[in-house]
């Protein structure tokens, strides 16, 4: 039995090339080259796996985070300065959240989620303006929104 390279030569040569006919140094060089090719192939495979894992990771991140937005307008009120919000995928729909206040809006698409959030901001503002029966935390939020929203 010859080495793998010798046998390969026998197969790929198509002819009846036997082990005896392959010069020794040629066989050694061929084996070294094959070894090098194997290493290169392994490295290429490893690189390809790493790239596909990274691509998958990027796809997941892109899917998970749609992005940060600034809310400039409310349905019936105006804002002095924009409010920061984040819109993310939420299973089959989207969720928009304000970073400073515990509020969110849900929708089938990002625009619907942002619209729902805008309604929520107004709804909370209206609630907070009704009276002062709130905990300190909510009174702070009330002050915050009073400074931001032009009624």
């Amino acid at each position, binding site marked *: 039995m010859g080495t793998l390279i010798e046998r390969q030569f026998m197969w790929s040569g198509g002819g009846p090339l036997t082990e005896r006919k392959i010069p020794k140094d040629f066989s050694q060089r061929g084996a070294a080259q094959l070894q090098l090719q194997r290493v290169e192939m392994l490295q290429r495979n490893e690189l390809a796996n790493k790239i596909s894992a990274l691509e998958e990771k990027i796809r997941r991140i892109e899917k998970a985070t749609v992005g940060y937005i600034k809310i400039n307008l409310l349905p019936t009120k105006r804002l002095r300065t924009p409010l920061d919000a984040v819109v*993310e995928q*939420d*299973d*089959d*729909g989207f*969720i928009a*959240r304000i970073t400073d206040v*515990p*509020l*969110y*809006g*849900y929708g089938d698409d990002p625009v619907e989620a942002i619209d*729902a959030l805008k*309604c*929520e901001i107004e*709804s*909370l503002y209206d*609630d907070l303006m009704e009276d002062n*029966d*709130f*905990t300190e935390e*909510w009174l702070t939020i009330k002050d915050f929104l009073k400074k931001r929203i032009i009624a």
Partner: protein
Amino acid sequence: MQNAKFHTRDVKNTCENKLDINFKSGKEFNGWFWLNGKKKKRITIPKGRKPIPRKTYKSMAVQLGLNAEQFDDLLECPLNKKGYEQIIS
């Protein structure tokens, strides 16, 4: 997290029956939880969703001052109003 088990209606019913929250109906349902004569927590419940999306479920829990597990307990029964008040006090 047991979000897949519940309809938003279940969350609303639990909040009404267990925590005595009265909801105002707008685009979504909004209600306040009162503690010691003050409005302490405000929850927003979207209309007609099942299963409840994970982040929405977690957001509702956060609004009530709970983590997802405590919110599961509230909806599944082990957590009652007294227990809830102890958590958020």
